[in-house]
């Protein structure tokens, strides 16, 4: 059997905030799922299977929480899968769900990713205890800061680039009603004078810790033909992984990320991503990762990514808008963050992104990464049904 086309016909998100104390975990995920079903104008009975994703179970203190979420997600009597691929999980979860449709196994699939980080402290959840790891770093920033510094040394990028990305993403977030951070008074100077957390990463160049969920309804050609709003078609999707630590690993531009992007572009027939893509939702938890990923994903030559940032290319009105939603820097329910990237890319090509819509966007990339810059998941969505 050849691969069946897959369409995104429903997108739902919660308003991401620091602590959703008004809902349980089940209430949070159901809120996103109900919104995705409403977008698709479908009911629970239309869903054949449910695929759930989230980052480590320790973040909420519930082992395999999908078991307890079966009722809240309407999965009783249906197949339910739970994906966990570290920070890339939101994207991987969407791809696992898409494959169920692509393989012809199911007609319509609901996929949900979430994190309710207020249930614990994610920074210390990410700091592995002895005996698993030497107590050298605190939180993800502690792990990634040296790689950012390596990028700056390697490329000679000016210090201000990181703050420009952060300021752009936080301003974009003002146009996204679901974004966690709405910092109306933020200025570039305030970003640059915010406290240094993990040199060279400042407080305002760091993602927040959020409670939030994201849901997608995926279907095939028949479902897409019936859907009331424009679908987003999946033109390519891939995952790549490499080990955390090994001699010769390029933390600045990991091979797994390059390979993953190349696979997606090949599937989608994209040869010049800089010109052929209209928007990118990129996983940028620390501002400097925007120029780093611009190079890793083939939008800029090696060492040139920061120049695109400096020239305003990635601004909302630039020729390659990156994170019009405000990105991970403005909302970070970790397990959901990858799926939000995938969902926002879909919203752009559906023309349903609201105030942060990029006019005429027809092809967009959703990107996620996780672990020690070692797990990558991406999809490329378009407003046109892919050629077969």
């Amino acid at each position: 059997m050849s691969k069946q086309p897959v369409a995104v016909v429903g997108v739902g998100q919660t308003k991401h905030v620091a602590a959703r104390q008004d809902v349980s975990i089940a209430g949070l995920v159901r809120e996103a799922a109900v919104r995705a079903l409403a977008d698709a104008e479908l009911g629970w009975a239309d869903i054949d299977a449910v695929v759930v994703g989230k980052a480590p179970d320790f973040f909420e203190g519930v082992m395999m929480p999908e078991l307890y979420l079966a009722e809240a997600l309407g999965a009783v009597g249906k197949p339910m899968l739970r994906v966990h691929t570290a920070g890339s999980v939101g994207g991987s979860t969407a791809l696992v769900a898409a494959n169920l449709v692509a393989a012809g196994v199911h007609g319509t699939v609901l996929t949900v990713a979430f994190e309710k980080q207020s249930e614990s402290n994610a920074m210390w959840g990410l700091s592995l205890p002895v005996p698993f790891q030497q107590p050298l770093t605190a939180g993800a920033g502690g792990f990634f800061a040296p790689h950012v510094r390596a990028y700056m040394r390697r490329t000679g990028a000016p210090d201000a680039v990181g703050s420009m990305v952060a300021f752009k993403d936080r301003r974009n977030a003002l146009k996204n009603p679901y974004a966690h951070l709405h910092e109306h008074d933020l200025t570039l100077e305030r970003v640059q004078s915010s406290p240094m957390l993990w040199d060279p990463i400042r407080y305002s160049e760091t993602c927040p810790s959020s409670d939030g969920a994201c849901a997608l309804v995926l279907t095939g050609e028949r479902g897409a033909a019936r859907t009331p709003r424009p679908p987003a078609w999946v033109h390519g999707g891939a995952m790549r992984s490499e080990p955390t630590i090994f001699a010769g690993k390029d933390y600045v531009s990991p091979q797994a990320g390059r390979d993953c992007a190349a696979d997606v572009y090949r599937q989608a027939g994209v040869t010049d991503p800089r010109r052929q893509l209209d928007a990118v939702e990129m996983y940028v938890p620390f501002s400097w990762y925007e120029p780093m990923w611009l190079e890793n994903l083939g939008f800029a030559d090696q060492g040139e990514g920061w120049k695109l940032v400096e020239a305003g290319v990635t601004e909302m009105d630039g020729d390659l808008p990156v994170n019009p939603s405000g990105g991970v820097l403005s909302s970070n329910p970790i397990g959901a963050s990858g799926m939000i990237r995938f969902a926002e890319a879909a919203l752009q090509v559906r023309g349903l992104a609201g105030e942060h819509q990029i006019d005429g966007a027809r092809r967009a990339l959703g990107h996620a990464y996780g672990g020690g810059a070692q797990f990558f998941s991406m999809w490329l969505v378009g407003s046109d049904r892919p050629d077969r």
Partner: protein
Amino acid sequence: MSSPAQPATHPAAHSAARTGGRDVAVVAFAQSSHTRRTDQLSEVELVMPVLHDVLKQTGLTANRIGFTCSGSSDYLAGRAFSFTMALDGVGAWPPISESHVEMDGAWALYEAWVKLQTGEADTALVYSYGKSSPGSVRDVLTRQLDPYTLAPLWPDSIALAALQAQALIDAGLTDERGLARTAVRSRRAATGNPHAQLRGSADVDELLRRPYEVEPLRRHDCPPISDGAAAVILAAGDTARALNANPAWIRGIDHRIEAHQPGVRDLTESPSTRLAASAAGAFDAPLDAAELHAPFTAQEIVLRRALDLDDRVPVNRSGGPLAANPVMAAGLIRIGEAAALIHRGEADRVLAHATSGPCLQQNLVAVLESARGTGGGTR
């Protein structure tokens, strides 16, 4: 491939039958020798030997595998992202196409089967591992219950299984002697399985003289606490035929979940198992054997009823999870043991079952066949 006929007496599958469009087979299986503790081994060291074993069986190398998928639990390991270290055992360089489920490896196999159905890969490496020894697995499993209404009460896995066993006894479906017979049969079957942890058993009368663990369950009704790992290689079509003289074709595979709250379920029934079995084509033709992931003796009774298995079908010739129960790998091992019967030419059509969650909440059923199985004409 044709859809399986659905006999009127069996529940209809929810949607399309899960028989796939592409012939996919288990071509290799390996498991560790499961033990009570492996203090000297990391998860990577637990997984490495079984990975090397399945690669050696097929002559494949890591870079010739199209897709890799694993299953494990951070809660067992006691650390976040435990699977990232296990990935080191795979040798993921150059980078590989890879995914992970926080589920038993049987569901990792399902994800890999789906991947092969898309045609994006022709081979898949599936592995899972569980190291229960660092903590008290009986307490750890309470953390997978509803965090608001159940987990605060700390009902442990044996207590919940005892509720299920008592419901069966109250319904007149078994008794303590019947449960003990299941334990004896399983552990005596395991004497032929060098990987099993508990091999051999005292007789029923002696077992019934021993004290209760949690009434009505005695120690023999409960699984051993095991550390272990397993790996499987899947391959499609001619690739499978080239890698194994007797591929174990996955005739159908499906999985279903039930409500989480034990109080809203009839614990003597397993409708999710029955639905999955029906979608996997289990009722279409007689079975030569079954490998059931029933960690507690009473759960085998529930599953036999859901699957219409009578005494003519040998269940758990390997000894099953009562003889070795590495959590997160025990379900994948059922599929591996079922496939191994076909690889060795000892059976033509075998059912494999995996479970997850309290009291058999979530269940997966796969039907494996040799080329001579009832679907063999098309192979």
